[in-house]
């Protein structure tokens, strides 16, 4: 285990609980049900670089990769769970990540949400939590969500939460994301620390917790 605590082991928002993805919190086969066996995984990953997993070993590698990333302070990956009161409470609704480009003082979010949890505003809610992590805790300057060309769901979700905190659409970067034989154009947005400071929701309910709390439920 690492001894740094840059990234909280757990994050709670009004409706969501995020827990850092590691071998202690999420069973490989449980996650593989979502990343590999699920009938909706093709649709869920259509606009992501993530490919549906063909074997549980790929899911194991994903978890190990998340642990490495955290150890190296390159970022953190969280499993997303709806809290009590939500439909599907306690299930894994997806995964989300925050990648830190320290040289650029930049944090890049990512998310993969299962289809049955779409349309609830979870992406925006977790984005607020990750912005709080990026700006208030990690003292970074820029939060830069992005989506591939054609990903209308992500576009709407990002436009909404970026607009809410006064951020901006930057533009489309051609040939930016190599993905197998394809290279995707990437639409990039950014929120600065100043914009966050001026526009963050006053009633933002985000709490960072350590690992022990997370293990109770």
């Amino acid at each position, binding site marked *: 285990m690492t001894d740094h605590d840059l990234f909280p082991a757990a994050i709670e928002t009004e409706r969501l609980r995020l827990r850092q993805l590691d071998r202690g919190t999420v069973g490989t086969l449980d996650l593989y049900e979502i990343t590999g066996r699920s009938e909706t995984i093709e649709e869920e990953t259509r606009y992501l670089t993530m490919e549906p997993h063909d074997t549980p070993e790929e899911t194991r590698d994903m978890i190990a990769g998340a642990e490495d990333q955290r150890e190296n302070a390159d970022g953190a990956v969280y499993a997303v769970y709806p809290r009590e009161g939500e439909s599907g409470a306690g299930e894994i609704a997806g995964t989300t990540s925050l990648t830190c*480009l*320290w*040289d*650029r*003082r*930049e944090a890049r979010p990512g998310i993969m949400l299962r289809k049955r949890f779409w349309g609830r505003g979870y992406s925006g809610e977790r984005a607020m939590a990750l912005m709080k992590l990026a700006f208030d805790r990690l003292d970074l*300057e*820029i939060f*830069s969500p992005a989506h591939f060309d054609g990903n209308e769901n992500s576009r709407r979700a990002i436009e909404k939460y970026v607009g809410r905190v006064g951020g901006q*659409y*930057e*533009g*489309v*970067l*051609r*040939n*930016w994301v*190599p993905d197998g034989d394809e*290279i995707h154009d990437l639409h*990039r947005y*950014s929120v*600065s620390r100043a914009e966050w400071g001026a526009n963050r929701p006053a009633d933002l309910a985000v709490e960072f917790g350590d690992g022990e709390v997370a293990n109770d439920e």
Partner: protein
Amino acid sequence: MFPAAIETERLRLERLDHEHVDPFELYAVTSAPEMAEVWRYTPFDPHETVYDAVEYVDDAVDRWDDAESADYAIRPREGEDGAGEFAGSAFLNTEWDRRTGRLGIWLAKPFWGRGYSEERATALLTLAFDRLDLEVVSVTHNVENDKSRRAVGKYVDRFGGRREGVLRNFVGDGDYVSDEVRYTISREEWLENRPGELAVEFVDEPDTPNEDLGGGDR
């Protein structure tokens, strides 16, 4: 893969290596106080000793040998004021996985205002698309760098490319963090808008007899 030299109407680009660039002529520019206004928009640290210039060339040689970047010294050709002098440095950085070439240049002050930047861009665009089969050429500059904005905007327009936007904190290196304007030109745009009479000539090194190839006599 990269031509050892490229000739345009007024310029000769020569591979930036120890054979073609003297560290003292490089150092004279990279340490000149008047160049500070160039470096302030880049992560580049002005050279403090001539050894920094030697290392600068070493790095360019490594990138060339690894096919990561074609770095050239720029020299005006005969007939130009300062013909044969070291006028600056230009590169085409090859991001193969993105099929993208990234342009960069800096010029010594006496050579500003002559349109050399555009001439060199034409040469390296030709290299990127016609020879290296890349799909996109990109260039960025610090959002406050008005000189680059004018020079880059002009040739990007001319070749039908586009300004993508301002990317905040797009460059970060040590204490230097910069908002950058990014532009791209695609191969299609290039083919449609490339100059009709293209005066760009690649000069390859003479083939070295390769005795290691094939079975041969033993």
